[in-house]
């Protein structure tokens, strides 16, 4: 009977740990999806502003090139989260994405001459950074 208690105890602990792990994995995945969706919005906003004549072609190309790199980094981040089943193992990819967003915010977007457009695109990028910060905080 005592042995049965041990088995049940081990099973319950295993289930609890599995549940905890799955919850963390789902949360990391949800944040990763929010990050991607916000980046898409930022990109569409920038493209719309370019089509409206508010952004110079050279600046537009530089920003889109950065979005292309960000998409690659985002896929690698998703893979890292998938492999580790939480955000902890994805720290390196989080850093890469954060660096790209920082570069985008500090260099490419500052090239947008129209104030309102720059503010709007900047706001969308700040949202991306905030979500990424949440993923990073979740990894602690």
């Amino acid at each position, binding site marked *: 009977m005592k042995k049965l208690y041990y088995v049940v105890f081990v099973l319950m602990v295993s289930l609890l740990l599995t549940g905890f792990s799955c919850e963390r994995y*789902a949360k990391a995945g949800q944040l990763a999806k929010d990050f991607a969706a916000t980046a*898409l*919005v930022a990109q569409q906003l920038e493209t719309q502003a370019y089509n409206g004549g508010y952004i110079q072609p050279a600046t537009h190309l530089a920003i889109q090139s950065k979005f292309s790199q960000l998409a690659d980094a985002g896929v690698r981040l998703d893979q890292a989260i998938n492999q580790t089943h939480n955000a902890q193992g994805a720290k390196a990819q989080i850093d890469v994405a954060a660096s790209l967003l920082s570069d985008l915010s500090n260099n490419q977007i500052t090239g947008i001459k129209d104030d309102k457009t720059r503010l709007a695109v900047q706001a969308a990028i700040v949202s991306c950074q905030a979500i990424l910060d949440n993923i990073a905080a979740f990894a602690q």
Partner: protein
Amino acid sequence: MNASEILKLLSLIAAAEPAVLGYIKSLLENTQGMTGDQFLSEADGIWAQVKANAQQQLQPAPAAARSQS
């Protein structure tokens, strides 16, 4: 930034790009019950869209369009 400025900024963004409204809607949608795999799968699909959009924008303009400009 006060609440009025934030609302003004949100309305500016929403007016500039209807997709923002779709994004806000998707954020408000109930995502409980989705697994980590499902979230990541959706994230990968969105990144593919970002990549495709960027590639489209980075493509050189057609010769006809260049000659007209």
